[in-house]
């Protein structure tokens, strides 16, 4: 006959899922994702998947339901972000693109410092012909990080500056092309960035994205990707309170990994992207 011990052991081993508790935890996760500016549809899809996995009842025994669900969503988010590959430091042509005021020019300076520290000399090319004193801004940063600098004041064609900058940079330099902030759906500005790409032939095209960006993040990353093909994302201003949830959609829409994060206004405030840190901060 069944021993009392074996019945008790059986009860201990079973874990019927408390649907109400799952719903409660899922709702919390949804709130965290939405407050972190994750794209609404993506947040709903993610939490739906978490709920499904929870209701399938594959919870390991002894595991706290909440911890388990958090781990599930963590895995789902990591699947979107991809595994962190080591960033190859070698001379290359890098073009920076993005919306207005995201931190492109500042990030160009930071990347130059990063490369110089790793032993690769860098030239910064000022191809923002729209913004007042954008050339001065980049020139001052180039002095700060002891990088080379190219500008052509008075030249109104960004692609001409890109081509000249590429030609004038010393052989073996990494060349960073700073471009003007632009709306991803402005046909003239998109045409300009395409001409720049043709003239510059970048090996990397990096989207510079503000961590506080709202629902536009995914759409604009998709538009930039379609126009010039993104190879990476740099998420800026993470030293503030913004969580950078928009970056999830930027990655999902472009397939480009997040390479670096900006953590301040100074030239040394650029760090390699770390998935764990980003996700745990995202989930609060």
């Amino acid at each position, binding site marked *: 006959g069944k021993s009392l011990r074996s019945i008790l052991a059986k009860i201990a081993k079973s874990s019927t899922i408390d649907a109400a508790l799952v719903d409660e935890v899922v709702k919390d996760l949804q*709130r965290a994702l*939405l*407050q*972190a*500016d994750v794209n*609404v549809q993506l947040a*709903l899809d993610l939490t739906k998947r978490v709920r499904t996995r929870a209701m399938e009842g594959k919870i390991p025994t002894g595991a706290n339901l909440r911890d388990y669900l958090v781990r599930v969503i963590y895995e789902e988010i990591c699947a979107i972000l991809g595994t962190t590959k080591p960033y190859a430091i070698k001379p290359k042509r890098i073009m920076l693109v993005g*919306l*207005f*005021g*995201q*931190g492109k*020019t*500042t990030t160009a*300076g930071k990347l130059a410092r990063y490369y110089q520290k790793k032993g690769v000399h860098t030239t910064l090319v000022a191809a923002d012909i*729209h*913004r*007042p*004193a*954008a050339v*001065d*801004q*980049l020139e*001052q*940063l180039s002095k*700060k990080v002891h990088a080379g600098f190219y500008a052509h004041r008075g030249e109104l064609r960004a692609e001409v500056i890109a081509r000249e900058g590429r030609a004038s940079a010393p052989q073996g330099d990494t060349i960073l092309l700073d471009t003007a902030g632009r*709306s*991803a*759906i402005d046909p003239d500005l998109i045409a300009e960035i395409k001409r720049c790409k043709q003239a510059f032939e970048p090996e990397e095209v990096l989207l510079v994205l*503000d*961590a*506080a*960006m*709202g*629902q*536009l993040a995914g*759409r*604009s990353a998709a538009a930039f990707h379609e126009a010039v093909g993104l190879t990476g994302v740099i998420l800026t*201003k993470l*030293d*503030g*309170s*913004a*969580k950078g*949830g*928009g970056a999830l959609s930027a990655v999902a829409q472009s397939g480009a990994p997040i390479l670096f994060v900006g953590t301040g*206004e100074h030239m040394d405030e650029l760090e390699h992207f770390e998935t764990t840190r980003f996700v745990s901060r995202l989930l609060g």
Partner: protein
Amino acid sequence: TAIKEKTLDDVLGDLEIVLLESDVAFEVVQKIQARVREELKGKKIKWGEEASAAIEHALRSYIRTELSLKPIDLEKSLAAGPKPYTILFLGVNGSGKTTSLAKLAHRLSKQGHGVVIAAADTFRAGAIEQLEVHGERLGIRVVRQKEGADPAAVAFDAVQHASKRHSDVVLIDTAGRQHTNENLIEEAKKIRRVVHPSLTLFVGDALSGNDMVEQAKLFNKELGFDGVILTKLDADVKGGAALSVASVVHKPILFVGLGQGYDDLKPFDIDWMLARIFA
């Protein structure tokens, strides 16, 4: 028949998604949901068209109330205020302070005011030069010192200069700052203490999502501001950020930025905003 709780839940759920996708902050959406639900509770409304109209009406009236805060008539304030009338621009990095200041300078000088600009962002590369280009193009005097100078000193200097020249408005540009950076918040407090601005404007970026709420709350709590300029509304965004900021700090939105040109500054109009959110 009163609107059934369950059907109202479904509708409010759909509404929630639309508002969130329009960049209305999460906590503000919750507030809206609660208010609309409260408004419609137990009302004798037929489901269908009548209910849809009732819900839209409840939503519109709530949003209208939130956005209709005591508007600031800038011309009236300028006429009645101290001479020179000083306007301080505050906000996080890249939100559009310098550009908005230049646009307002253009607008005020077109309206016949004598304008002086204080280049009190003494930190960022090219910040002073950026304002000098605007000053040159607009024919407006920019008061500056060297890079790294004390921002409060530059602002004070500009006010002194304006007083001597009988210019009636001083617009003070400041460096971008994260509300989480205590040192920079202290720096802004010092500028306020030294200058006693007649008007303090928070410049918010309409591209922002939920962080707008954090920014607005903290800037208002630590520094205090009288009104808001919301920028980049020409971008592909609905502008729910307007609702987020108005609803958490209860300050009026004076202007919206609709582009990078000097004329791309429009007085805030509620119906325009509502049309945009409901489009």
